[in-house]
């Protein structure tokens, strides 16, 4: 589905990614682990061409080269990013936020049906639909951010740290929701600091360190890898 090969990226003189290659198979949840500054967000930014860095290499979406395409062209090919820190439109209502999610793909035809689909996925947002996004709790805001991405009818979603700053109970809920979304045949590339939860729901995973992929494999195998356990799972 998504094939990144030998991708390098730099911000001016600073190199952020060094020959990164990874693949995400259709229908899978693939998780990308790594510490702060490893280049995870840059990688997602490069795939969506939404960061100001210089790129080389190749990014293929269903066999088609998308590296360097404008962001809206990438969205209309079915790839959407849910950015770190939710990035909602603070003063717009929940529903207006969701509608903005359809901006890149919709010319006013299907958004009502898509809205209903998102509300079915996140019933809690229905009662909040007329509220400004900034007044929602962290977990609800994350739901809006994911729901907004779903409005573009993506075939693959990139999620950047969806559990950041959420209470443990909500973290579990968000991960279960990601699994539900995947169940609706949406492929997921998940960047997470919470490696334990990420590996719990993922099929496969990659480890990114200082701009390089240093490990990859099936999620349950990586969860047993001593290096991964020490560096990302915190205990034996």
């Amino acid at each position, binding site marked *: 589905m998504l094939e990144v090969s030998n991708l390098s990226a730099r911000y001016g003189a600073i190199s952020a990614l060094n020959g990164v290659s990874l693949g995400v198979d259709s229908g899978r949840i693939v998780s990308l682990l790594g510490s702060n500054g490893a280049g995870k967000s840059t990688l997602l930014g490069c795939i969506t061409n939404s960061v100001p860095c210089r790129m080389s290499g190749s990014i293929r979406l269903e066999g088609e080269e998308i590296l360097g395409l404008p962001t809206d062209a990438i969205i*209309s090919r079915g790839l959407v990013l849910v*950015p770190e820190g939710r990035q909602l439109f603070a003063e717009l209502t929940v529903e207006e936020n969701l509608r903005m999610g359809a901006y890149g793909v919709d010319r006013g035809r299907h958004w009502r049906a898509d809205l209903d689909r998102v509300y079915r996925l996140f019933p809690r947002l229905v009662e909040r639909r007329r509220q400004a996004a900034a007044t929602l*709790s962290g977990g609800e805001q994350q739901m809006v951010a994911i729901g907004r991405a779903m409005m573009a009818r993506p075939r693959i979603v990139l999620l950047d740290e969806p559990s950041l700053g959420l209470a443990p109970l909500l973290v579990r809920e968000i991960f279960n929701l990601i699994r539900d979304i995947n169940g609706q045949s949406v492929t997921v590339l998940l960047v997470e600091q919470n490696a334990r939860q990420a590996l719990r729901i993922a099929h496969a995973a990659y480890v990114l360190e200082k701009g390089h992929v240093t490990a990859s494999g099936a999620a349950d195998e990586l969860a047993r890898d001593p290096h991964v356990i020490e560096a990302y799972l915190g205990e034996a």
Partner: protein
Amino acid sequence: MITQLVASGLALGSIYALLALSLVLIHKATDVVNFAQGEMAMFGTFICFALLTRAGLPLPAVLLLAAPLGVALGVVTERATMRPLQSAPPVNALIATIGLWMIFHHAAGWIWGYDPVRFPSLFSPEPVEIMGARIAQNSLGIIAVSLLVVVLLYLFFEFTRMGVAMRAASMNRRAAQLMGVDVTRTSLVAWGLASAIGVVSGLLIAPLTFLDFEMMFSVLLKAFAGAILGGFNSLPGAVIGCLVIGVLENLIAAYVSTAFKDTFAFGIIILVLMFRPQGLFTRRIAKKV
């Protein structure tokens, strides 16, 4: 007496409000304060005047052409001077607008001369009687035109695809980009709209003050004062702030001294920035993280 003063103050305030709307529009869309806004309005008004006198077009035709002409002026300026600075820090673009101020200012003097010229009246000078007070048709006309601009802007931001995208981009540019909003387009549209509204304000003020390459300086100052009073990030706030400034200006000139007519605007800017920098009319939404 007081009714007339308030009415003509509201008219004056409406002209400031139009220019303030231009300032706030560009600021919201691009984080840049366009110091050249007043000079661009003056330049556009001079082009209208040239169309009127040298090309001999009738006044209604010129008035219809004013808005598209303003759009063209804004779009060309944005492309030529702002686009190359797109990835530079906003302060670079801000300084560039001060350069634009000089360029438009002196280019206008150079092309059209340094002497004030009379601009034909847009409205009849005859006053009309409203609730026992005689109010100049001019004031009513100015208020009506400004109201029309405000209503059109409101419709644009609430109901058009581009307008909604611009609101979203002004709140969170990166997120808007991730939704597929082309942020270079929104910047261009903001400049075009702002410049068109500026030219309308120039056309409204020119018959009152004479057409002159210096004419927009005090208007820009008052527009700044009004926009800051309203919070500089709120379009309705800027309008209300400017109406307050317009009325105050008239009352101060009548009851205190005409010497303070312009300086009080500086006073308001300083007072607001000192005691209520977010402006009087911006509402704050309690934020939870």
